[in-house]
């Protein structure tokens, strides 16, 4: 009986670690010490334990604000599309471009609820746009074949090749862009819990180390910088071979072929779904709950504090295609 109760308690803890933690606001005198301190910067493990006991999961602020295109109407759900194909990576982990193109296009179309990906891109991007495709660089980078596929599709839409950029770490280059497509790799991050969508723009802050450790909860504010806000038209997560622990450095002990693409116009919803997949894989590896540590507080903060989208699964609709085995969500 005791074991059962403890197990239930742990499951609740996991649920609250993912999203929906009830934050106890610091006492008034604590806030006086620093006006910049947000409640998310004063979170302890006990806050999660309390949430688990209370079963709290509600979110006060939901709905994308920073995404310019395709804002869900009031009451509408954010769509997150997952498309997978078993043969997208070969035995040497090389990308089968044809297969990758098929799932990427499938996911983009499903995320925007259009018949084809070309129809989706038409709704999101103008031929006159200067488009930045932002990929994860350095360790454990995005599979660049995916950027090539997007580039081809944008050129087919009429965007001149010269107007399709890879701004990555270049602030000036991203300022020139009128539209951005976020293309991060799905990975856990030992400093922030998750190092995927919200962390992708960290270099545009000009002070990345200020967003490490406890300050990682503020990653969402980068998306609201004046030269970023509203430009991100689509988030496409490279989930071909995610990393569920020890990121961003590649660690094959925790990498597996998920062989999928996750697409959404809501960056927080996309991140939340990626997080769910990472968490499920971790639990599968250990055979027991293995919560991400530190908890990715930036995901809920991006929702509640920065209004970038929703991490509330009651407000997310997941559209799946491809092999169901190992979907993890």
């Amino acid at each position, binding site marked *: 009986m005791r074991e059962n109760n403890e197990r239930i308690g742990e499951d609740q803890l996991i649920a609250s670690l993912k999203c929906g933690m009830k934050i106890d606001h610091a006492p008034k005198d604590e806030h006086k010490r620093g006006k910049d301190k947000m409640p998310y910067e004063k979170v302890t493990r006990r806050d999660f334990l309390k949430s688990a006991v209370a079963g709290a999961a509600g979110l006060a602020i939901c709905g994308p604000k920073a995404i310019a295109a395709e804002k869900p109407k009031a009451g509408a759900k954010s769509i997150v599309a997952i498309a997978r194909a078993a043969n997208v990576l070969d035995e*040497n982990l090389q990308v089968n471009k044809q297969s990758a193109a098929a799932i990427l296009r499938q996911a983009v179309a499903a995320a925007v609820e259009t018949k084809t990906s070309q129809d989706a891109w038409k709704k999101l991007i103008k031929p006159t746009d200067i488009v930045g495709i932002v990929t994860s660089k*350095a*360790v454990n980078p995005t599979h660049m074949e995916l950027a090539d596929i997007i580039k081809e599709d944008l050129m087919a839409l009429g965007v001149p090749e010269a107007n399709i950029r890879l701004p990555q770490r270049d602030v000036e280059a991203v300022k020139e862009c009128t539209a951005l497509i976020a293309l991060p790799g799905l990975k856990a991050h030992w400093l922030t819990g998750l190092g995927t969508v919200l962390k992708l723009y960290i270099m545009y802050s000009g002070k990345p180390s200020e967003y*490490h450790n406890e300050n990682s909860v503020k990653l969402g504010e980068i998306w609201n910088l004046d030269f970023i806000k509203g430009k991100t038209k689509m988030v496409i997560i490279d989930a071909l071979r995610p990393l569920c622990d020890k990121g961003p450095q590649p660690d*094959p002990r925790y990498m597996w072929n998920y062989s999928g693409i996750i697409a959404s116009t809501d960056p927080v919803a996309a991140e939340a779904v990626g997080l769910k997949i990472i968490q499920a894989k971790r639990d599968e590896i250990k055979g027991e709950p293995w919560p991400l*540590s530190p908890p990715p507080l930036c995901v809920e903060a991006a929702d509640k504090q920065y209004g970038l989208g929703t991490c509330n699964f009651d407000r997310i609709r997941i559209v799946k295609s491809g092999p169901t085995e190992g979907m993890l969500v």
Partner: protein
Amino acid sequence: MTCMLLGLLTIRADAVVLPSVVCTGWKADRRQIVKPTEIFAYMNGAGELYLAYGFKELYVGEYTKAGQPKITCELYLMPSSADAYGLFSLDRTGQALKIGQSAVYDSGLLIAWQGKFFIRVITDYETSEAKQCVQELAKQVVKLCGPVGRPPEALAWLPPNGLDPESVRYFHTHTVLNYLYFTATENVLDLSLNTNAVMGTYPSNTGKSLVLVIEYSSVSAAQSAFARFNRGYLKGLKVEGENNLVKLENGKWLGGKVKQRKILLVLESPTRAECERIMNALVKTN
């Protein structure tokens, strides 16, 4: 300082020079020395991990052979052998190998420690030839690492009875603690490069107890950190007895006290009796 030229790379005479050729037909495409100030350019935020152990220099070699995946060898020079052990201790998952002072291999990644060096050799994907070369390269590199070093003295702070030896972790900073066991976003235990911390688990029939011992630079620093921990983490909970036992919201027990320059903590224990028993053992050991 005396310098010599290695390809296009100017390096100090006392720097480690990774081999240019390894195994059969694998050649170094690139060899590089990364200093702490350059670590973010090399590996972004991942560099914080090595900074959290005060790494001095990183030697990188990338090896290629036609038809085979790339192998990357990273050799981290740490301030002490205790720190090299500390990095290794973070995750021992894999097949144990007799390379250096300890090594494990799994799925194309080999990690090891020897003296003041932490060694990380990884292949882009695993083939039988690459696997063999990763291990051969590690053996070759260990020879560059000098004599064996002492593991941290902190290992003796954990009572041996009931300790899962594979669970022992050695570290210094709040960031690493939060990676191993999220405690709080704020540094409620005043951890820094000047503190030494060791953690381990004690499994029993009723569950696992997690123990943390931290050594500070002075008694007053330990007392101050413990007071902060009480304010920042235990606020509102009823504290019982000499070992300051506390029942947490999930029904598990926490105990803690200061002894000289150390804070002794049982962070999670399935029962009050278990928590008390381990606290008493901790006090006796330290």
